[in-house]
């Protein structure tokens, strides 16, 4: 028996009405994501990859087609599917531990505190529990966002260019950290990026989207062991193929 995929998208279209016409953002997207898989959605800016993620998170509904998680149609946001935003995700008026505890309000106090603490330690922020986000660097803020997401033990983490506003060195560290955590937790992750290297370094499978209206151009498995060597022939082959698929010349 084939197990139901974690996420199943069938014939998903999304369009927004505009003054005189209709803006078509996604066109006929079919996609399955397996339980525990790390999938990257790669595409140029404005190709609808964030829209696709919003559909999975329940923040938008498709114009046609179906979005299902665990076989059930998505009908709005749910703490089982946690979103991590590029910026403004965590609350600047709350301390690190208050932020991480956001999804633990229903739990008894002691239990919530211990879960929060465990996740703060998991992302390496011990000692910063009572600090406000304004005192943290960009990378540390995103660690808080990841800890807040993990604290509710979600089935699915949806990340919308979470490292997009970080400097390039911090970005590398954060990728390594994310992989470390993913290997430990094996939570299904859908990760949106426009960075080709980021997708090859992180994903088990890369889904390449076209220019608007976004459709799936290619689905590429990355069969490389971590840590992935950016100079290895396979890495370079994948990179070339991604650039070709997206119609961009990579040698400049």
């Amino acid at each position, binding site marked *: 028996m084939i197990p139901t995929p974690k996420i199943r998208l069938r014939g998903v279209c999304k369009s927004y009405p505009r003054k005189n016409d209709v803006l078509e953002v996604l066109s006929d997207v079919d996609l399955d994501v397996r339980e525990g898989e790390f999938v990257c959605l790669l595409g140029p800016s404005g190709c609808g990859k964030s829209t696709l993620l919003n559909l999975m998170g329940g923040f938008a509904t498709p114009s046609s087609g179906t979005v299902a998680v665990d076989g059930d149609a998505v009908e709005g946001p*749910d*703490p089982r599917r946690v979103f991590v935003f590029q910026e*403004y995700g965590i609350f*600047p*008026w709350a301390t690190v531990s208050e932020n991480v505890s*956001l*999804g633990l*309000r229903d739990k008894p106090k002691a239990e919530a505190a211990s879960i929060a603490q465990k996740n703060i330690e998991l992302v390496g922020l011990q000692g910063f529990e009572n600090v*406000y986000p*304004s005192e943290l660097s960009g990378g540390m803020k995103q660690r808080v966002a990841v800890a807040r997401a993990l604290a509710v033990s979600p089935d699915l983490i949806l990340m919308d260019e979470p490292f997009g506003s970080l400097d390039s060195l911090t970005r590398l560290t954060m990728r390594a950290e994310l992989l470390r955590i993913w290997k430990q937790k094996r939570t299904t992750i859908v990760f949106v990026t426009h960075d080709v290297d980021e997708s090859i370094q992180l994903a088990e499978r890369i889904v390449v989207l076209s220019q608007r209206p976004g459709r799936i151009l290619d689905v590429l498995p990355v069969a490389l062991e971590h840590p992935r060597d950016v100079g290895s022939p396979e890495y370079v082959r994948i990179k070339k193929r991604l650039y070709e698929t997206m119609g961009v010349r990579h040698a400049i």
Partner: protein
Amino acid sequence: MNPWPYYVAILSVVVFATSRRFPRSVTRFTLPLATTALFLAAWRVSCHWMEYDLRFPDGTIKRIPVFPTPYETAVAMEQMFRDGTIVRYTVASVYRVAAGFGLACLVGVPLGLWMGWSTRAFDALNPLVQSLRPISPIAWIPLAILWFGIKDAAAIYLVFVSSVFPMVTGTMAAVHGIPAAYVRSAQNFRLSGFELYRRVLFPASLPQIVTSMRIALGVSWMVIVAAEMIAVDSGLGYLIMDARNANNYARVCGGMMCIGFVGVGLDWCIRRLEHLDEVRWGLSKLT
């Protein structure tokens, strides 16, 4: 006239002109002092210019002062301070502002949060709020007296009317300006009802709410003076009207200065709020 105002004015200008040569630690004291001195000097000189000669039928000429000098004003203030008038009237005015403004915050902030979040509340209430808002608080004076009489309540009501609309509008705008990701995070973790207001909408709006409070309190303080001139028989506004009727312009000016000082004090108090952790995060870009 004594020539000292001219000397003081020249000295002030010298302080301004040479201020570049001194470090900020010096000029932050000397510049405001020089401005104050120049202001007082200009005041004194203008008093002299406004004096005129009155000729009596018997041929005698008398210099008539029109306007009180800084010194006469200071004497009048000192006198009013000693006989307790200023303290009593300041307390009366501040009490009315505190009551009216406090009431306006208690009503305006929840209402603004609600109208900012719920589109149906916005659709229902915004036309009414926006139509009442441009009505000057002064225009409410006849109704306030009709309803409450020449009593504290009338003045408190006028302060309330003057500050509740800035509070509602400011809070509502703050909610509308909350970044989408905060709201989505809240939805993602199933915050709703009171918890949504307490954990996200209110704290996210708080920095702007404090800014609105600062503006509303400033307006309140201006309105109370006007209200007290007509609607009650105590307070700093009443003091000014009373002194005018007694043709005592030194007291009028003394009362005005008092209003200015208390206004600065009130603003200082509300600015303390900006130093709270809950507020500072939203203002850090400004400081």
